[in-house]
């Protein structure tokens, strides 16, 4: 056998070449066809979708009836547009959108779609049902929590949170600990629930739930500033898990209560630098300014630069802290004095503190900063 010199037969090779040429031509036609089709679809959507969105939004804003489009493709788009608009509009408009979606059969269609054999169709339907706010969606979403595809289960969890019904929120929370979803999914889902019903989230802290769920609850309660949860957060700030302490300290910083603030001051001495850094950041608008200023001044000597940085920025947030920062302009640690200067600049305090800064510059032993202060104040 010697193909180069005496090929057994060129017929088979030529046949393969000819076949490949046809396949190449077909692939090229497919490529150009797809490119052109996509271009046409985009033009088509730009022509019809945006005007439909504008008409719908105007009608909802004016409290008028949302017109039913005549073209079939616009009817399909209307459901999509309404579910996008519902979360961003106020209470009355939300209820109207829910009513429209139910009356015009969109919810029923999505309920049917939620039983599709294709997981992505089920996921999309579940997502829209969650955005619809319709009680009719509740049993479907409950069933979707045990869907065979993880993406659908995740979507169902968030859809239940988005539905805005107390029963749905309870159901989502009960499932949160059971369904293996990513931490970020969990966190954002709990945030949605906490915005509507923080008390339900608080009750989760008292149950025996996994640490990621507790952490997500703490973050959510902190994000919405739910003060009745303070006692629970204070307890968690003493937890042995440093990540949980970070979350609790962050949440307490957002609550802005006197007791919480005392815990933040104490957390500046925590063994974990992440807790100290978070506590420093949380003291930027303190109730007891002198105590916070003293604690943050000590934090400017922390061995971890991130803590020192956060302390400097926090001090720039209140008047007693500004005085500490002016003093820190002469600190031995160059990073601290530069950061103090930067924090004062960023807080827009240079004009207000002009006299104190000029005095500090006159006494400042570091020529580089002295010049910088004089230039900055001028």
């Amino acid at each position, binding site marked *: 056998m010697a*193909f180069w010199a005496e090929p057994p037969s060129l017929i088979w090779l*030529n046949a393969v070449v000819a076949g490949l040429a046809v396949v190449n031509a077909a692939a090229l036609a497919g*490529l*150009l066809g797809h490119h*052109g089709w996509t271009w046409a679809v985009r033009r088509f959507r730009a022509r019809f979708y945006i005007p439909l969105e504008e008409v719908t939004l105007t009608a909802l804003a004016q409290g008028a009836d949302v017109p039913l489009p005549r073209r079939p493709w616009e009817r399909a788009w209307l459901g999509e547009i309404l579910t996008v608009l519902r979360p961003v509009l106020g209470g009355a408009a939300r209820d109207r959108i829910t009513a429209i979606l139910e009356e015009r059969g969109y919810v029923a269609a999505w309920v049917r779609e939620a039983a599709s054999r294709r997981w992505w169709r089920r996921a*999309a339907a579940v997502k829209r049902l969650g955005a619809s706010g319709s009680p009719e969606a509740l049993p479907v979403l409950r069933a979707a929590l045990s869907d065979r595809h993880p993406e659908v289960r995740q979507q169902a969890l968030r859809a239940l949170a988005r539905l805005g019904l107390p029963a749905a929120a309870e159901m989502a929370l009960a499932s949160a600990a059971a369904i293996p979803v990513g931490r970020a*999914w969990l966190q954002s889902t709990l945030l949605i629930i906490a915005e509507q019903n923080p008390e339900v989230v608080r009750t989760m802290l008292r149950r025996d739930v996994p640490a990621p769920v507790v952490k997500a609850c703490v973050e959510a309660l902190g994000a919405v500033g739910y003060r009745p949860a303070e006692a629970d957060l204070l307890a968690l700030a003493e937890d042995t898990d440093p990540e949980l302490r970070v979350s609790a300290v962050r949440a307490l910083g957002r609550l802005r209560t006197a007791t919480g603030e005392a815990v933040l001051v104490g957390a500046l001495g925590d063994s974990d630098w992440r807790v100290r850094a978070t506590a420093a950041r949380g003291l930027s608008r303190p109730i007891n300014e002198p105590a916070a200023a003293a604690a943050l001044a000590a934090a400017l000597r922390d061995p971890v630069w991130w803590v020192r940085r956060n302390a400097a920025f926090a001090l720039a947030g209140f008047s007693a802290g500004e005085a500490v920062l002016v003093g820190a302009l002469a600190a031995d640690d160059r990073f601290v004095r530069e950061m103090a200067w930067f924090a004062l600049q960023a807080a827009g305090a240079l004009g207000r503190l002009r006299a104190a800064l000029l005095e500090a510059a006159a006494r400042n032993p570091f020529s580089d900063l002295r010049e910088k202060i004089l230039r900055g104040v001028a």
Partner: protein
Amino acid sequence: MMSRAIFEAVVLGYFALLNLTYFLFILHGLWGLMRYGRRLQVADRAPADYRPISILLPARNEAAVIVDSVSALLGLGFPEFEVIVINDGSTDETLPRLQEAFELVPMDPVVRTDLATRPVRQAWRSLSHPNLVILDKEAGGKGDALNAGILYAGYPLVCTIDADCILDGNALERLVKPFVEDDRTVAVGGIVRVLNGCSVAGGRIGAVRLPERPIEVFQVLEYTRAFLSGRTAMSLLGCLLLTSGAFSLFRREAILAVGGFATDTMGEDMEMTIRLHRYFQTRGEPYRILFVPDPVCWTQVPADLPSLLRQRHRWQRGLWESLVRHRAMLFKPTFGRVGLIGMPYFFLFEALGPLVEMAGYLSVPVFALTGTLSPEFAVAFFTLSVLVSALLSIATVLLDDFLFRRYENVKDILRLVGFSFIEWLGYRQFLAIERTVATFRFGQGAWGQPERRSLAAGSDPGRFRGVGRSA
């Protein structure tokens, strides 16, 4: 006669096996990309869907691009990140330009000593951008620079990026998603696309166009093929051996566990990926190393042949270094799919490929001189090669257009298709020669000395000569 028959059977068999593998990759990649696309369609972006990231930007004599590059990174809309620029013994104006642009002040020396690196002369912190750190260290190569950056990194995820790259606005958000979704993820690579020809304004990509020069267009084809078929398929199979050093995200603890980036190789990115596989496979711990096709990093590619050849020379030597170093994994079932699919693929098709290709080319004149060449067969075989190669390219361009549609202008699509037919008329041969030379010289050399042009001049293909490792 027998030896010749064996030779012909090896070359033809190799050709058939290689192209069959490529087609299987494309089909597998198509399936994976479709699945990914569907997930994106139903994906729900939420504010908490991220993890903070430390971006490591090693730079050596990058004065021409460094300020633009760092400014572009600082302007990313990602919620929480820091940028650590590691000036690896630059002899040009890299550090002074950074000092001038970002108000740098000295900060404390590093306290962590998990990795041994060349000494850091001074660490700097920016007053204008609190999330910017500059490390000025003695030259030690890219791996050493990355290791120094890892010691300073304040966040659990570290992203490596080249100085001549620009990220899409949502690139970090997309790249971090696998880490958010699954705690077993240890490394994720994004897609690298060719910046040449595109317009850049304010550190962002404007119009995406094909470059003018043929050599750059060929590279567009290569990058599209490599990322959308090869890497996607390897990622789906769980044996991805290369997350691009130009744009990858790693779990810092995992990097520390394998001893950091290798400092004695030209392909520190591949070496790191293989080390991670080896580490976790040996311990039997669950892990994921993935390629994600839509976080885009735009990079300048060489615009002239000498620069391109130097780049490919380095890549080929880096590939051989990693394969030789981890030869114990080759064909070993204990390393799962990495040992049975990933390593053999890279060894047989990527490392040995140029040698077989060169043997095929050389055999033509040899047989012609000895009067044993069938011209009809040679022409038919050459045509077959061109058509197979073109089909692979058209399929990946179609895939790209179907899912991402980066090139809006139909002329660009037609040019890409046209170039896929003429790739075999010189371009492939030049690369095969250089890679063959590199194969016999692996184990030598150090991190290259790239010459850069301003990123803002991305649409001008005329002056750039760069050799940054990208794909």
